[in-house]
């Protein structure tokens, strides 16, 4: 019956960090090394993605033609290409791009002529706001629902619950978003469904975005709770007469939650990809909405700047999780003691 629990995604095993974290200075050393390694990865990642994207985007079309439309004369095309530096050989354009990008200059938007990087930076707070709201929802709901489901997974109502969670994993996020809008904005007129105008605006989009990841996180949490329930220390605690609440919240959850948070952290990039759909659906003024529009308009500089910024965001969150997970793992602290 427990095959509905998700044991395959038990995320990175935090106990692997144990040896390095047995004392504070070595923990800091460990954190520093982790950060350093991550930063190296980030540089390589951003460089490779930018390079790949540079050439891929130029295969998709000549922005000069898109800007000019069907009236373009050869003179217009030449003039526009020269204006945007598109008349240089591709390899020269590439080295110019890298040189500028190193100084965080991604050029000007082809559509609006605004500075591409500032356009993206302006929208980062809205995206982080939405993503963090979704992360919190994920963690809180996963702990509550996953804890309940995993505590006694053999009971019929929990088996039904697990089955429902498994099924909901197959429902696309945008469908959930459209249903939420229909119910809460159109039918009951309770919540706004467009833009970011006050705290109520974040409710529907964050629930939608959370739904991209939630079923997986619930299943992982339930599996972790179920596993922890079989541990010796839980059996001992129960034998010693600890109440169900004490067992669950003092002994089981702290172990299970680490995996939950690790999964959410590792999947943060996936969550951001969900924000492309969510931000479009809810007209949320974030990076995802802008990226969709930039791709549609072949606005290369904005696409490049967005990808670089998103890579840094994902890196930052993963680095944070890398550092916080050993801190949060009770097994590591018991070794320390």
């Amino acid at each position, binding site marked *: 019956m427990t095959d509905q629990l998700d044991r395959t995604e038990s995320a990175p095993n935090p106990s692997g960090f144990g040896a390095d974290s047995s004392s504070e200075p070595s923990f800091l050393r460990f954190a520093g090394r982790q950060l350093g390694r991550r930063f190296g990865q980030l540089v390589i990642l951003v460089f490779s993605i930018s390079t790949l994207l540079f050439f891929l985007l130029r295969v998709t079309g000549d922005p000069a033609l*898109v800007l000019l439309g069907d009236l373009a004369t050869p003179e217009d095309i030449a003039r526009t290409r020269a204006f945007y530096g598109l008349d240089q050989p591709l390899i020269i354009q590439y080295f110019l791009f890298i040189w500028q990008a190193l100084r965080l200059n991604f050029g000007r938007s082809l559509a609006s002529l605004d500075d591409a990087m500032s356009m993206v930076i302006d929208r980062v707070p809205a995206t982080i706001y939405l993503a963090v709201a979704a992360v919190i929802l994920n963690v809180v709901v996963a702990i509550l629902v996953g804890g309940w489901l995993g505590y006694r997974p053999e009971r019929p109502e929990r088996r039904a619950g697990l089955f429902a969670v498994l099924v909901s994993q197959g429902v696309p996020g945008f469908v959930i978003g459209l249903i939420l809008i229909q119910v809460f904005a159109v039918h009951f007129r309770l919540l706004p469904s467009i833009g970011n105008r006050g705290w109520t605006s974040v409710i529907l989009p964050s629930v939608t975005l959370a739904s991209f990841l939630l079923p997986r996180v619930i299943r992982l949490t339930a599996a972790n709770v179920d596993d922890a329930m079989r541990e010796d220390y839980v059996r001992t605690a129960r034998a010693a007469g600890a109440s169900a609440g004490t067992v669950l919240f003092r002994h089981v959850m702290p172990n299970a939650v680490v995996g939950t948070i690790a999964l959410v952290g590792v999947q943060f990039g996936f969550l951001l990809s969900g924000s492309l759909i969510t931000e479009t659906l809810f007209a949320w003024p974030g990076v995802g909405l802008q990226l969709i529009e930039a791709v549609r308009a072949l606005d290369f500089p904005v696409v490049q700047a967005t990808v670089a910024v998103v890579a840094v965001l994902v890196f930052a969150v993963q680095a944070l999780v890398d550092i916080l997970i050993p801190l949060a793992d009770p097994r590591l602290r018991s070794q320390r003691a």
Partner: protein
Amino acid sequence: MRRKGSPAWLVMVALLALVVAACGGDDAEDTTTTQAATTTIADGGETTTTTEPEPAEEESDTVAIGMGNMPPSGMPYLGAGSPGQYVWSNVFDALTRIGPDGAPEPWLAESWSTADDNVTWTFNLRDGVTFSNGEPLDAAAVEATFGTVLSEDGRATYSANINNYGFIDSVTAVDDVTVEIVTATPNVLLPSAISIAYILPPAYFAEAGAEGFAAAPIGSGPYEVVSWGGDEIVLQARADSWRGQPDIETIQYLNLPDPAARVQALQSGQIDVAQSPSPDQAQSLVDAGFEVFSASRGQVLAMALITVDGGPLADVRVRQALNYAVDKEAIQDALTGGFAPTAGLYPSPGVNGFDPSRFVYPYDPDMARELLAEAGFPDGFDIEAEMTLGSFPADAEIFEAMAGYLADVGVNVTITQIDFAGEWLPNFLGTDGADWAGDAFNYSWGTAPLFDGIRPFNFYQCNWGNPWYCDEEAMPLIEAVNTTFDVDERNALLEQLLDHTAENPPSVMLSENFELWAHTADLSGFEVFAFNKPFDSVSSSG
């Protein structure tokens, strides 16, 4: 060993801190909030306080419009068509405006005339027009605007707009209200072409620069810009506009790219007007008490037939047969929900040269087979069509249906989907030697932004840079329409050309391109022509 307060919560605290930081960044957004806390009585008689989205301020003098995409910039030369014009036409004015019948009408210029050399034009400006910052809109402002955008830099930066009237050589202020425009070559369409050349306030533009101007544009229209962003544009009515004071006090354009979400925003009262609902959505909105109107986009969906390489399509009887073979009315009814204004008729309503009585090929498959047999293809033939799909409402379905009808008379069309930017445009323009690989491609009979029936003939002709269709007989007529400066005489020639084209179809004409707009029933007076969406005529009874 465990202490109370597991550090697992540290993670949560860190995340919460991020939320707070992120929220802090949105303070500016919050000031524009339009929600009001209202008390409603729930079904059970229980009183609950909810935060309800409000479509507009209490007196409903704000109209919120859900846009499918937003203007690229507040600088009205960064683009030429929709969606820019939908907003710009409320803020700015040009010397002329394209009227409901497609002909240019006096706007900032009260009248104009052409000298005998056909390249010198004199425009007489309306007196006493001011920009919303108080600057006078005089001949000097016109000269300064054209000077800026027609400079070498301006031509590169604003090419999408400028290339419609790039043939202008010089613009000179003769006196306060008289402007002389000299063109490099005679071009009878100058008054139409400059309908998208909005006049800018010279002192403010010099001070703000192009970038500053884009962020806070100032024009002479009935609305002034309160805020201009990629997600929201807010306009406020001016009391002292030469166009009169509009009834709607505030217009809010909101970026709502998802069509379903846009319709839901209208249904939930968060917006008052929704751009481009699909025909299905429009029908359900009508059923729910909303109003829907259809705006022609001056464009007819068509499959262009490549004839310069010979083959069956070079035979006019074959091209006529293909037009007889397709049931355009059925396609229109089935795929456009009956909202498309016309089927198979070129040019579109609202375009100079439109004539509802012009010949449209009726659905007559027997006639099609007869003509094919006469041309020597009784068993039909196979052709390949390169098409971009998704740029026109239901275009994939319409072309699919067309292929079905053509297969009925033995002409098998294989549709290859190509990319617009990477393939279609280079093939069309012949950039760097690119060319069509098949026998046909999708090319609408589009007239924007001139809204004159002649525009497609710039391309459907022997002298086009990368010609695919060449009708030697039509060439003198095209030339005559382009060089006749007497308006009536020119219109008669245009009619002759269009009649000739109906008999010698260069393409398979299909369905009218239209855009639907849905709005709440309390709004009325929408004027829809060319690319204008002026809101000075709209009023609210709510």
